């Protein structure tokens, strides 16, 4: 080893730097979580979403027992129960047929969260697959997928959803067609964001290094490109949940979402619209629920974007 081209000193023993001692195994995701925890607005948003989700999941165990069923209303003595202002028994009052508004808002969160999250999942599945194929293979496939995305984006979003949902027979109405419709209409934006992100990541030498090692396309995609390209999608996806909730509310308000009588926030606003001046609570509470939840998703998405931005490293 020493006689290799005389005059060259051998490599000095390498001194490891200890500046990271105590931060053993710090991952980039771990760093991002630490930054997110310092963002007060994002933490409040996250806590609000946790509360709403917990209420939605546990609703069956306490809401009907304490406040009454959100859907069934009694015909006897209904008149006294109609459109009551908030009391201890009914913290948000009652609606026009005497159902407890608080119970309906809680059950409405089930519908809104389910539709919001599942719609984004549908968009993500389609958008991530098509976006990555488009960016990874390029050429004609890329052109083809992106032109289809353009066609989708050229349609007015709500009109397209109305068209799809209005041809649906009445007996099929429910949560599934609503989130499928919203999800299918949402994929082009996800595909575009992910495509541009993959395009920039795949130029990196570590992808080439993987290729030079003989890695398959699937391995390159899943191991090298996806983990580095997914950050913008996490941000976009989080914010899209809020958008999907809004769309569901709009569709329900237009009477195209869920069957009449189901406790959907948009549907509740539609039902209570005519009592707006006499009992504003009927519209106000579900409206506040939509506002706070959508705002929470947007703020959380904003916080995640800042947390994932390495340039803002503390």
């Amino acid at each position, binding site marked *: 080893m020493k006689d*290799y081209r005389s005059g*060259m000193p051998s490599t000095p*023993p*390498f001194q490891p730097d200890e500046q990271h001692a105590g931060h053993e*195994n710090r991952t980039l995701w771990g760093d991002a979580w630490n930054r997110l925890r310092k963002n007060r607005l994002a933490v409040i948003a996250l806590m609000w979403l946790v509360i709403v989700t917990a209420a939605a999941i546990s609703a069956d165990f306490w809401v009907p027992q304490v406040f009454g069923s959100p859907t069934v209303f009694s015909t006897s003595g209904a008149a006294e129960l109609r459109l009551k202002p908030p009391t201890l028994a009914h913290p948000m009052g009652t609606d026009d047929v005497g159902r407890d508004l608080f119970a309906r808002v809680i059950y409405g969160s089930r519908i809104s969260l389910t539709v919001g999250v599942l719609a984004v999942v549908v968009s993500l599945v389609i958008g991530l697959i098509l976006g990555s194929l488009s960016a990874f293979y390029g050429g004609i496939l890329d052109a083809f997928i992106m032109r289809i995305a353009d066609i989708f984006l050229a349609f007015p979003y709500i009109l397209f959803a109305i068209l799809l949902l209005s041809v649906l027979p009445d007996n099929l109405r429910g949560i599934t067609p609503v989130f499928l419709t919203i999800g299918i209409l949402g994929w082009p934006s996800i595909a575009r964001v992910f495509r541009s992100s993959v395009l920039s990541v795949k130029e990196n030498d570590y992808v080439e290094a993987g290729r030079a*090692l003989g890695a398959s396309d699937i391995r390159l995609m899943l191991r090298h490109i996806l983990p580095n390209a997914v950050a913008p999608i996490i941000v976009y996806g989080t914010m899209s949940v809020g958008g999907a909730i809004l769309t569901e509310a709009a569709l329900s308000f237009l009477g195209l979402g869920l069957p009449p009588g189901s406790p959907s926030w948009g549907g509740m606003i539609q039902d209570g619209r005519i009592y707006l001046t006499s009992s504003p609570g009927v519209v106000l509470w579900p409206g506040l629920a939509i506002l706070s939840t959508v705002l929470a998703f947007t703020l959380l998405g904003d916080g995640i974007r800042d947390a994932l931005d390495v340039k803002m490293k503390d």
Partner: protein
Amino acid sequence: MSDLLRVESLTKHFAVQQTALGSRLGGHVMAVDDVSFTVKEGETLGLVGESGCGKSTTGRCIIRLTEPTSGSIFYEDRNIRELRGKDLKAFRRQAQFIFQDPYASLNPRMTIGEIVSEPLVIHQEGTRFEQQARAKELLDVVGLNPEHINRYPHEFSGGQRQRIGIARALALNPKLLICDEPVSALDVSIQAQVLNLLGELQHDFGLTYVFIAHDLSVVQHISDRIAVMYLGKLVEISDWKALYAKPHHPYTQSLLSAVPLPDPKQQRARERIILEGDPPSPIDPPSGCRFHTRCPIAKDICSAEEPKLREVAPGHSAACHFAALNPVPIGIARPAEFTPIVG
């Protein structure tokens, strides 16, 4: 020693513009044009030239990261351009690549243990435990602490990252390493360490290197032979001593005159050949000899006829009409016995 690698008439053209539907507009960049050379087993071939001369493209073609437009590349007498599937994967075990930028060549979301053992995972070598042990061994070989196996690349400096890249390239015991400017992104003091490491590894494992650099003072340390490229063409190739002592091509002469000499007296006495202008565009290269637009000794024949690469001395070829007449350049004083500057 036999030839491990033989490159014959390698040519790579890049289309300048591509429309969405795949049709091509505009011209082609002649990145590499009719380049031929051989690399013997166990030796180091230095590939030198300024930015954009096609040296990296040549290296990438050799390990099939870029598909050549035409020409053949023989590795152990098999044309690697014809390799598919299993054979290509087997070739990948033999030839590896070291990248220029140590900040871009390591996946930031993988630990260095995962990075170094990835070749073993891809080629299904050994159990997880054995892969882990091999990764530690490799880190030790390149002078890193094997205990750092669970750290992430961002916790390391440029020189350390380059060592990780070298460890990854060594994982499958390759015979041939293409080093694409492996030290040009590093500090000078770190450059020497990494060059010495590469030298030791070559000695210990009998590696063959194709060492790409834009800096003759870096390649002189490690190369047995040196090939000089200009605008996609090979202009001179020779044993390193002969090239430094008697460069025949005026381009090589100008490159050598830019290498600082350690002795200030010699440095002052030397006449620098300063080339005028920028290299011409490789989209529309000059007629005849591609160097004639900047050549200090160009004559009429140079713009009319392209000089062929021909032997001017045993094992020393140059592509210049006046190569034989122009053996000792003016003002390039090379010490007969060269001593390294760095280290």
